[in-house]
């Protein structure tokens, strides 16, 4: 059983790392937004895995419930981010954030 938990945690940590890398290292808005969704998905997977295999036998439904709400908020934020990306493209004809404005 605990091998299952470790497998899920490894997957989730990998997703998290990929997402964090995309947010930090990419200047393209689209890549950054996708990266944030990777981070959210990683958290949701960790919640579900802990709910199924972790010590939370008393709260079996808690993990999936959190995951559901997290994906909803993630979608809401992605919608706002995508709207902003469209505005950025309209202003600048590019999806890249300008890095000069220090």
């Amino acid at each position: 059983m605990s091998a299952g938990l470790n497998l899920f945690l490894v997957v989730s940590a990998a997703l998290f790392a990929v997402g964090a890398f995309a947010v930090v290292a990419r200047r393209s808005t689209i890549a950054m937004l996708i990266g944030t969704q990777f981070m959210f998905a990683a958290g949701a997977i960790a919640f579900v895995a802990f709910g199924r295999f972790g010590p939370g036998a008393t709260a079996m439904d808690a993990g999936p419930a959190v995951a559901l709400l997290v994906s909803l908020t993630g979608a809401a934020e992605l919608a706002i981010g995508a709207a902003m990306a469209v505005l950025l493209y309209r202003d600048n004809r590019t999806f890249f954030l300008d890095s000069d404005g220090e």
Partner: protein
Amino acid sequence: MRTFGNLLAFSPELWLLAGAMVVFLLARFAPGTTTTAALVALVGAFLALATQFKQTITILDGAFTLDGFAVVVDVVILAAAALTLLASRADVLPGESPAPAVPGFFLLATLGALLAASAAEIVSVFLSLELLAVNIYILSALARRGSGAISASLGYLALGIASSGLLLYGMALVFGLSGQTNLTAAGRALASVNPNQAAVLLALSLLLGGFAFRLGLLPVRWWTRGFEVGIPLRVVVFVETAGVVAAFAVFGRLAVATFSGTRIAYPAVIAVVAAVAMTAGNLLALTQTSVRRMLAYSGIAQAGFALMAFTDLRRVGISALLVFLVALSLTGLGAFGTVVAYARSVHSDAIRDLAGMARWSPGLALALALALLSLAGLPPVAGFFGKLLVLQAAVDGGYVWLAVIGVANIALAAFGYLRVIRTAFLDSPVFEVAPVRLDGGIRAAVSLASAGIVFMGLLMGPLYAAASYGRAALLH
């Protein structure tokens, strides 16, 4: 039906929600009245909150706990939001047509902040913080100033969502280690089953990392683009007052309920972060040439100072934190309000352009001086009392070295801010300034904030009693 039995305890939040809906409708039919409607909703929420003093109510099966701590924090958040709204109309630049729905998003963000202050479950903490954050993202993108503005909002959004991701992962670890979603129950489980200490420390680090953005510990360079471009100052003021207060409230509850029983050295972790943030924030603030940037960076130092209170959570830490948050809100509103008001006249927020401020608008110069003194933590204004209590907490918690760094930072900050005050009062003006007539809203906001900064010392007795009440409610 016990779950929904006491939904009326949500009445302040319901006022804000109803107010936001009314504002969104009015934005369509009577766009001039939305700010007033939003202020009415805030006052209504405050009155509704006043009926809930002195009781502890759990709502939705313990997802929210409206205790004394939450009530004290709610009062601070509502006051900060009301003053921000009052000042916000003056921040509209000539030629800028603000969306009339803006006050509605302020109300929804305030709603998120209130919910966050009373959230007692992992899910409710996350959702209410997201409600706050999402509305701030919208607010930051609604008024676009200059071509770089939307880029600033997007950078802010990406960083915000990424820090939410860190927060979520930290919460997942807490859930995984304890098997509980309730913060208090999770803390009890973490204290009793004695899980892997490295994992608990990792969870705390992830949570601190996620909160760092919301507490104002990160240099958000997108805010400091300069005057008349980037994110409007009214949004920055809201984030630096109500947003920071809500984040500290959540982090305080989390630290007390979940981590104070564990065996990891959490005060040591927080002390190191606090020391670095204070020093770095003050050094960065000192090197700035614009008041707006200086205030933004000094926000980092303020957040670091507030974190010092976490070294002594079991005793006076929470009382000190609450008093400090009151001082922080008043100071932030006073300082940013003055900058907004004066920048209308001089069309600049460079420090050297403050020269002659005492001659052109003596009232604003006085307000700025008071706010800067309070920011530095010099007696006898508000910031001094907050910092004194926090230093006391650090010493009581056994972190004398941290208190020494804190005092050194007060000296450093005083040097920097007195320089600005000297420019405003003594330097001879570079150019003639015709003071712009300010609307009543920002006058009221700046006067109220300045009065609060001056008189907080006199009201320390009742204020400290309220803070101790909040602390007692949190510690049971």
